[in-house]
């Protein structure tokens, strides 16, 4: 079970969180003309990386905030966690 640092609440066990997938995916703006390919990339296509991955988690049984977690998908090492609005360099 992972130990995730919620930027709002502190270290919590994985079972308080739910996983939300790749955090680098950006939803296309509303009312904007986009190609099928762009839409498919948003809805379906994911890289399934081995290694460092920026991903979304929601602190479901806690503050209910969606947060960003930088995790190694192979080793589960967590490098950093961020608030939703935080800029990541």
């Amino acid at each position, binding site marked *: *079970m*992972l*130990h995730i640092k919620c930027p709002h609440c502190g270290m919590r*066990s994985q079972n308080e969180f*739910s996983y*939300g997938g790749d955090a680098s995916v950006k*939803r*296309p703006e*509303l*009312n904007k003309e*986009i190609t099928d390919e762009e*839409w498919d990339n*948003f*809805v*379906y296509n994911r890289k399934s990386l081995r290694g460092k991955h920026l991903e*979304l988690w*929601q602190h*479901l049984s806690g503050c*209910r*905030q*969606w947060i960003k977690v930088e995790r190694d998908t192979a*080793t*589960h090492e*967590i490098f950093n966690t961020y608030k*939703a*609005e935080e800029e990541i360099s």
Partner: protein
Amino acid sequence: MSQNFRLENGGLINRNKKLSFKFNGKKYFGYEGDTLASALIANGVHLVGRSFKYHRPRGFFGAGVDEPYAMVQLYRNNETEPNVKATEQELFEGLEAKSVNCWPSVNFDIGAINNFLKIFLPAGFYYKTFMWPKSFWYRVYEPFIRKAAGLGVVSTKHDKERYEHKYEYCDLLIAGSGPSGLASAYAAAKNGARVILAEDKPRFGGSLLTSDVNIGNQSGDDWANSIISELKQMPNVVVKNRSQVFGYYDHNMLVMSEKVSDHLPKTKKYHPKQRLWYIRAKEVLISSGSIERPLVFGNNDTPGVMLSSAAKEYLKVYGVLVGKNPLVFTNNDSGYETAIEFKKNGINPIILDSRVNPKSEIIDEAINLGIKIQFSYVVIAAQGYKKVRSADIAKISDDKKKLGAIENIKCDCICVSGFWTPTIHLASQSGNKTKFKEEIDAFVPGKSKQNETTLGAANGVFTLEETLQSSFIAGQDLSKKITNNDNKISLPNVVEKKSSQHDKFWCVPMPEGKNYKRFLDFQNDVAVSDIEIALKEGYRSIEHVKRYTTLGMATDQGKTSNLNGLQLVSDIENKVIPAVGHTTFRPPYTPISIGAIVGREVGKHSKPTRKSPMHSWHKNNNAVFVDAGVWLRPRYYKQGKETLFEASKREAKNVRTNVGVCDVTTLGKIDIKGPDAAEFLNRVYTNAWLKLPVGKARYGVMLREDGIVMDDGTTTRISENHYHMTTTTAQAANVLSHLEYYLQLVWPELNVNVVSTTEQWAGAAIAGPKSRKLLEKLFPYNDVSNEALPFMGYMEADLFGVKARIFRISFSGELAYEVNVKSDNGNFMWEKIIELGQEFELQPYGTEALSTLRIEMGHVAGSELDGRTISYDTSLEGLISKKKDFIGKRSLNREAFTSSDRQKIVGVVPLDKKTSIPEGSHLVKDAKAPLPNKKLGHISASCWSVEYDNPFSLAILKDGKNMIGEKLFVMSPLKNKVIPVEIVSSHYVDPKGERVRS
């Protein structure tokens, strides 16, 4: 039976407490502090089971967790448990156990014929033989294998025992209470660290209990006892025996199984049988020790052949002799320690040492005690079937290739020592890449992966002084990092005997003209010849060899067999062991009961049960409940001897003719507030929301981004910037997360807040032609007329002093209202409705009638919005706005979503108007078409239409739009039914929707 093999005195057992027990129906006696194994050996019982494949007689090989053979069926307090290790099971009064793997009995076993036909059961036998023909698997092979091979028998009764889970945090978790565990725990505890010290055995001390050493002028076990007593007094220390740390998971999460009551005849009241600890540790000290390696020779599985360390443990801990005429076969000094213990207790052992001319303090002591030692000698084969009776031995050449003339010597047990294998399982589970240590011919942990430190024998350190020193330092240093305290512990004076180098020899060559079975894996009956075959057949990777031969795949996970298997592969392949590599260790280290894993999450405890505030009223009024997600809802209210079918028909009919009331508290409710709330809803729902006036409700459908319908419900504008959203009961949590996702991540610029209010409101749906009349009585101070409160209208009203919200919405298709009050007032509201409804012949109705009403109206629910349907499929496409963008809209122009023969919801009526249609059935054109019969659609929901008094179903049907009036067949292979049906509109009742507006 007397305990012929029990010494007059000695051991750590309580000789004042005699215990009786039964094994295979026969009564024996042992003492408190015995294991089942030690008690049986004390009684001279060495035959405890049969082996898995050849059904060869099996005895005891070890004295603890490493035991590969002695698994029994245990009977305790009217329950039975399979595969209990006799070496771990503590004796209690009245214990009963039976052998497994033998039929009809341990002494005469039909499966043993496999032993004489063993030529037919080489490596991969199961793969090769039972593969073909395929149809034989169920009928012939599986029953055969099950009958002949199976381990114990699982009880099919409900397990009444209680198993608990516990979550714990600590600074240092120390796994194992041998010298390294005690020293590190002591040092860390003195530094004020929060320490958990876990020991899998009942007694603390590990190897200190059996070794002849002296620490600070105390014997090993006295020193262990004094350290443990001191630790137990410290408030920052938790000391646990009978507790096995079996799994090392991510982020320093370890799991430990504590056997709280297994050693007692019966679990005490309010106590659990076992407790599973989830421990998040800052630092983990692995002091799990080492396991002695067997030496491989002919018939080395005969009862009476066992590890020399086990023989010593039986002697020193239990005061039990494993034999009175022992032969010790060793390649290192450990065998001597065992022989010396025998000698001290008046037994004359013979030592065969494979080494040429070793010299050490221990060997000198053995010589001085007059023990007979033969150097450069090996055991070629054990003789005897159900127990060792003699051994064929021979001199071996210095290069270990040639054997001298075979001699036979009498003995009743053979204690083997092939040196030691560090127990690296936990380190390996942590992700540590272990490395091969040439000096000890075994793997030790490499660089730490998580915060784990391996100490003592587990780290390949076999001298006590070095172990204690490094463990004191580790405990000090690691705790200092956490507590900033720096108490130095000085190393006590340690007296131990120095050992000489072990012999890199582990497998006795096969003498010419002989064909003994030389076993590597005792539990899975894997012999040297099996590995040889696997390699001949081209298996190279150790992982493949393992799976093909099943080496190390038994429940003991190869604790005694792994390294010898690797040695063999490396010898044949002419590779060094590190190049062969070893297989990965995975949790659990030792079998864990399913009960412990499940814990308290059984039956009603497997998920929370949520009840509405009106629950007790339902219960008192003969409601029959049904699980609706985590909620308990009335399914129907039973009158007299009514069946579900009769009751739900009555309730639904009453709604259509009079008025009914249904508890709808479970509906998901989300409060939405903020200046951008309307804009947000407009993006979330497919239809338009900007112009919804205050005091009005609107039905909405929300999609996922892939265009599939996510949920539906009504949302009401309470005030300018305040909305009340309802969701289906099942999707409530998902919808809230979904909304939070968009507000927090996608459109953070929207000034909107959402919060779940499901539990804050109690809800009652009042439905039926007389519902307005009832409402007038309920709200005498409010105008509830059609003009003041029209369809999809909303008002705040006064229910005899209680504030209420009235929504004029309808799921039943009748004139209907939903009344919400604060949860605390739910019961008041409900009782008022029941009381004042009497004159209108009001009846409460449950979920079954609710379903009937919505199905015959063609209103969709979870069975249609099943995560595979789009708005069109469920005839909700009218709610799709062409003017605005919303979540999932871009997906709707996908080719499959716009095809002209796309599936659509329809109604289904059986031609005979009598036969009920099973939900989940398929719709086909031709009932007699050959299989696979092309499926045109499926039945999503079925009911008995109370309006027309015949069965009616909803279906999602291909090209449903053009199928109205067609005749098809419903097929249910599950229920073995074929029903001719007609396709009709899904709006079976009141297709124009006049009633809701009346």
